[in-house]
């Protein structure tokens, strides 16, 4: 399979018009359409294929189909129609049969052939237009391109040729070797040859070299260039002077730059020291702040303690006063009890004395009773009153 799509993409082809020689059914149509070209001209010599292609594109306004062969000269030629229509050619297959042994020429038909120059004229292609020529000529390219003049080929900015070795088809001029890329280079094209994935065909991409001008233009261009060179030389001398001056300036600036740099380095080191000192101070500040905070905390704790102590003192004082009051009360009670005890003692002593006195009286009375028992039961004695008093 050809590599047209890849090459068109790689060469950034943007043609005004496309001419495809030996287009067949033009399976490349979608690629061409994507290039937004004005017109696609398809040349197909096989009448049957041309008819089918015309049917296929009958609704495409941008496609023109020409049922003609391309040849070195305009006239009628015999087309060898192969069983595989892709290999139909104005020439008979030769070494091509090594690759495709089943190819057979089914019939030969008379077709109208047109030269490339005539085609350009008929289709009014611009002489140096941005046109694309695609050629699948099955061996006839070795006749068509050498026969076309450079002026004719220059109608196309890009030429893509699918071509095999010259001996794939029986060439009329046997032994005349044609260097197709050389022919196109001579016509002012940059030529690149790409092998297809498999033999026997290769794709030749030719890009018109627009910088190629005629001799007078070249001489004028040369003179202009020489003047330019002189100007450039003068300019160069001036530039050398300027360069020296600039170099002096540069060396001066370098010295200044060195000074500034050393100053800068010094400042940087100072700044570094200051930064370190600041860092140390900051650390110290932080330390002090921490200590102050610790002290404040301690102070707060002490204040708290003092407050508690004061409260305790007040409480102790109150307690002391209370105790003193209680002590005084207790003392008073004690004294009172003591006086009571003293009174009690006196009374007990009096009672004891009275008792002893009573005992004595009893003893005396016992002796009287034995003598007068009835009086003792009926009449209370003075001593009986005394006993009640002591009991009280």
């Amino acid at each position, binding site marked *: 399979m050809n590599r047209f799509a890849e090459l068109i993409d790689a060469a950034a082809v943007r043609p005004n018009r496309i001419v495809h020689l030996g287009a067949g059914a033009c399976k490349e149509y979608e690629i061409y359409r994507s290039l937004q070209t004005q017109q696609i001209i398809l040349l197909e010599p096989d009448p049957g294929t041309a008819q089918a292609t015309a049917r296929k594109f009958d609704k495409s306004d941008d496609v023109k189909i020409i049922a003609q062969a391309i040849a070195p000269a305009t006239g009628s030629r015999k087309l060898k129609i192969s069983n595989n229509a892709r290999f139909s050619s104005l020439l008979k297959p030769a070494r091509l049969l090594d690759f495709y*042994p*089943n190819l057979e020429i089914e019939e030969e038909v008379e077709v109208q052939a047109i030269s490339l120059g005539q085609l350009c004229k008929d289709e009014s292609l611009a002489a140096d237009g941005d046109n694309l020529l695609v050629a699948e000529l099955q061996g006839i390219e070795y006749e068509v391109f050498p026969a076309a003049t450079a002026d004719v080929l220059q109608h196309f900015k890009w030429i893509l040729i699918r071509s095999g070795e010259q001996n794939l088809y029986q060439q009329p001029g046997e032994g005349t070797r044609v260097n197709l890329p050389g022919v196109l280079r001579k016509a002012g094209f940059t030529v690149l040859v790409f092998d297809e994935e498999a033999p026997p065909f290769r794709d030749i991409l030719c890009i018109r070299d627009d910088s190629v001008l005629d001799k007078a233009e070249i001489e004028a261009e040369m003179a202009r260039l020489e003047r330019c060179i002189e100007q450039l030389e003068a300019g160069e001398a001036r530039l050398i002077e300027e360069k020296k001056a600039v170099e002096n300036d540069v060396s001066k600036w370098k010295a200044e730059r060195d000074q500034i740099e050393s100053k800068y380095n010094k400042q940087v080191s100072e700044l570094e020291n200051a930064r370190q000192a600041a860092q140390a101070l900051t650390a110290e500040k932080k330390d002090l702040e921490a200590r102050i905070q610790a002290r404040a905390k301690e102070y707060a704790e002490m204040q708290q303690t003092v407050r508690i102590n004061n409260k305790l003192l007040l409480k102790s004082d109150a307690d002391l006063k209370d105790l003193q009051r209680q002590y005084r009360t207790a003392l008073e009670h004690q004294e009172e009890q003591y006086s009571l005890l003293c009174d009690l003692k006196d009374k007990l002593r009096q009672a004891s004395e009275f008792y002893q006195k009573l005992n004595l009286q009893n003893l005396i009375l016992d002796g009287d009773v034995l003598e007068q028992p009835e009086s003792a039961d009926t009449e209370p004695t003075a001593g009986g009153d005394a006993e009640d008093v002591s009991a009280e």
Partner: protein
Amino acid sequence: MAIIIFTGTPFSGLQTVAKQHGLVAANQPAAAEELSELSREICRDQYEDTCELAWTPFSPPQTHVEKAKALFSSMQEGKTSCWADIDCGLFPDFWLQTGENIRFVFFYTSPEYELANYLEDHEFDSAQIDRVITSWVTRSQAMLSHYLKHRDHCVIVNIQALEFEKPEVIRTIRKKFGFAPDTVSTLENTLPEKPVLVKYLTSSLLLGHEEVSELYDALRSAASFMCQEDSNFLSIFERNQALVAPFLKEVSRLGKLTAAHAEVSEELSLKQRQLEQLIDELGYYYEKSKEQHRLFADYLAADPLLNIAHRARQVQ
């Protein structure tokens, strides 16, 4: 030792044909199995989870060459060993490095045949059909390219030719390589002819695919052995047009069949109705007969003479 590698497109039916025609290594099934496994592994390494239909030709790393060599050397000495694998056609250059006597038989199919085989086992899905066509193009192009570069080492054969003209195919292989598969069964026609409807459908699906048509023509032009229908180089449009008449004929045949079927169905339903009527009638008469039996039994029970006779019999 000579090795023949058969390969083809994913829906060419290669494995079936190769097995049924005795082309695969019947005497070294394990080695062939391992080779297929290696081929699969290489593809998996390359494409991981990508759908097989999207695989394109590639160059595997050289690390697999030694393993392949070892597997080939394990095949029986002095014999022509054969191995059939679909995926090895994606990297034929790799297999060429693995031995001196490696030969390829590329089995190609028409795109219609490929699609028909696909549609036999799959639901209709236009996106998947596009993938099948792309896969056919990719793999056929790879086979053709390899053939054009190494014509001494390869033959291109239409897989259908093996069905109908097997001895000639084998002869062609032998003529080209100097050797051919050792054992070939005499089994014929393992691939049935595709119905006209399928042929028409597949050719319609391929309309507008010029690159497919061109590639198929190139394959046929390069083929070492074509089948009968390949010899007529028609474009897809022409092939499709050629199928219109048989397609219409088939449609009309199917139409007639449908009409006949409708007629038979109608007749059947008529018969069905008649049968149902008959069943109803039979039921009616059966009921009537039962009633008559009952009446007769009653009459007999009520007859005084019969009663006397009955009693007399009892007395006796």
